[in-house]
């Protein structure tokens, strides 16, 4: 029994330490720790109370409605105000008044407005890593193309950043390219009416705005009633050919409509048997790269290469023939390859020019087989006369 006292003493020390630890835990642990987890719950509130710096475009809209309305209709509609004008918290606080307004100087409240080239090039500099469908500028080339001599010229001298597409051109009222932009890019619900029926709708680029000649010509050809420009000129989105219109008249593409199949109507459109169609003609071998357009181009529209501008100026065919004739000494054996690389003509024309290599042997037979005696059954009326008088 004598020994009890020291046990009691040890236990009392342990008990005392536990109590001290409990008190220490209660006192040292910050308030709200472990309330909802192993963290200080009040910290959440503290982080929440940090002040907002970057302003939302909705805040800007309250005062600058006029600019907002221009901005939202143009290509930069997705670019928020903060990207160019800075965060804007001081500007808003200063002009809204209230408690903090007194501490802000007028200078602090001014938004960024002046831009050098660099500001625009953050987004628009030409870089390999940028998506190819995003407009990118190689400044050196751009200036060279426009004959700009002063290298310090700013983008904003010509382009209004609030409405960048509205340049001093005929298409300044146009905005959206129908092949690039679709209605549902802006509209959530399917659109029933045409944009032209809606008053104040931003104008949309139409093919005829730029290619009036071709569109007029097309409207007189048989295809006009059944297909649109877009039916053939597919636009390749999201790849390296972006911005280019698909214009290779591949036979397979024409055959989608014009091949005879058991499940297709017999009446329209006109159908052909394939591949017996080419074997009938005889002159085309299987696997040859002849396209339907070689013979049927007059069914569609005038074939002008290169954005409506032919690289051959004026009455080129006639003039070049005479020019080439005078240049060469051996007039009987003159050929393109004397001056040009072998594939010079075929790089654009997809076939050997002026006549395919086997023209002399085969063309005559082909005409005989087809039973056609006039050149312009297959070619345009001026086709042969352009060279042969």
């Amino acid at each position, binding site marked *: 029994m004598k020994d009890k006292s020291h046990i009691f003493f040890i236990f009392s*020390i342990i008990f005392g330490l536990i109590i001290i630890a409990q008190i220490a835990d209660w006192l040292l642990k910050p*308030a709200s720790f472990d309330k909802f*987890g192993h963290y200080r719950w*009040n910290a959440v509130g503290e982080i929440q109370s940090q002040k907002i710096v970057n302003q939302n475009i909705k805040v800007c809209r309250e005062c600058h409605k006029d600019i907002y309305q221009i901005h939202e209709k143009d290509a930069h509609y997705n670019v928020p105000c903060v990207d160019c004008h800075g*965060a804007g918290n001081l500007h808003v606080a200063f002009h809204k008044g209230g408690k903090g307004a007194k501490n802000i100087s007028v200078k602090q409240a001014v938004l960024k407005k002046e831009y050098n080239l660099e500001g625009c090039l953050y987004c628009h*500099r030409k870089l390999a890593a940028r998506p190819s469908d995003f407009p990118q500028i190689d400044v050196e080339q751009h200036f060279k193309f426009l004959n700009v001599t002063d290298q310090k010229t700013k983008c904003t001298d010509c382009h209004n950043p609030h409405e960048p597409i509205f340049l001093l051109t005929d298409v300044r009222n146009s905005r959206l390219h129908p092949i690039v932009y679709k209605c549902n890019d802006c509209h959530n619900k399917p659109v029933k009416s045409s944009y032209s029926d809606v008053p104040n709708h931003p104008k949309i680029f139409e093919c005829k705005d730029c290619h009036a000649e071709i569109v007029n010509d097309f409207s007189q050809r048989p295809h006009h009633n059944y297909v649109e420009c877009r039916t053939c000129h597919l636009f390749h989105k999201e790849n390296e050919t972006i911005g280019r219109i698909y214009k290779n008249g591949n036979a397979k593409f024409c055959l989608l409509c014009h091949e005879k199949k058991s499940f297709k109507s017999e009446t329209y459109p006109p159908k052909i048997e394939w591949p017996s169609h080419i074997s009938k003609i005889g002159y085309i071998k299987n696997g040859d790269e002849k396209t339907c357009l070689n013979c049927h181009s007059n069914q569609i529209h005038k074939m002008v290469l290169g954005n409506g501008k032919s690289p051959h100026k004026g009455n080129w065919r006639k003039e070049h023939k005479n020019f080439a004739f005078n240049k060469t000494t051996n007039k009987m054996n003159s050929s393109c390859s004397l001056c040009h690389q072998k594939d010079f003509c075929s790089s654009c024309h997809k076939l050997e020019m002026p006549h395919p290599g086997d023209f002399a042997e085969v063309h005559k037979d082909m005409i005989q087989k087809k039973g056609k005696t006039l050149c312009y059954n297959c070619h345009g009326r001026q086709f042969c006369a352009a060279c042969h008088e």
Partner: protein
Amino acid sequence: MGFDMGHKDRRKFIKLGLYSSAGVLVGSFYAFSKREISPELKKYEDLLKFDWGFIVDTTRCIGCGACVRACKIENDVPDTYFRTWVERYEINNKEIVRVDSPEGAIESFKSNNYSDDIVKAFFVPKLCNHCYNSACTQVCPVGATFHSPDGVVLIDKEHCVGCGYCVQACPYGCRYINHEKGTADKCTLCYHRISKGESPACVNACPRNARVFGNLKDPKSQIRKILHQRRYGLLKPDLGTNPKCYYIGLDLEVK
């Protein structure tokens, strides 16, 4: 005798020492402990309705750096540190990959790294992944970094001792030590903005909608819609951190 006296004295001395040290401890705890009252802007139950997620569409990013600049101003991030940054990957025809991010792309990118033989190149914006099983919150010795009830990994600046364990633990390099404040720091998904119904500063600044932010618990939210429609990847999924930042169009080269 002398031994007895000494024994009692020692006992008295130890007792006195213990009591006095306990008293000093208790007193100092009282003196130093702060009973703060913090503004609770949103209730715990309200926060449980959210699970904030993030989508980065690498196919849309143009590497302009607007997000980096916006983040820097919004959160007063010190120079040379970034809470979000944009990486550029360039692969040339010899299959050599180059990754760069000059100054976190705060001034965008000036030129291509390869002269003309780039076969593939793209931008990948990066930020804290706010992982479900985050490594950084597990290593904190003082419980200063935590998951908020709405699924954001936050740092308690009052409580953080700046030991830097979490900076080393993060496999994505998303944390840094803020030397001005002496604490660890990281992306908070702009917690002060999202709790007021705004989008994070980088999402607000993105001119191409390459960054999407939303509530993963809401089946009608845009973020869920995109995750159902698009094919996405995660950064370093093999680490099991289960990140909550989804990357659309992620390449194998991206780590």
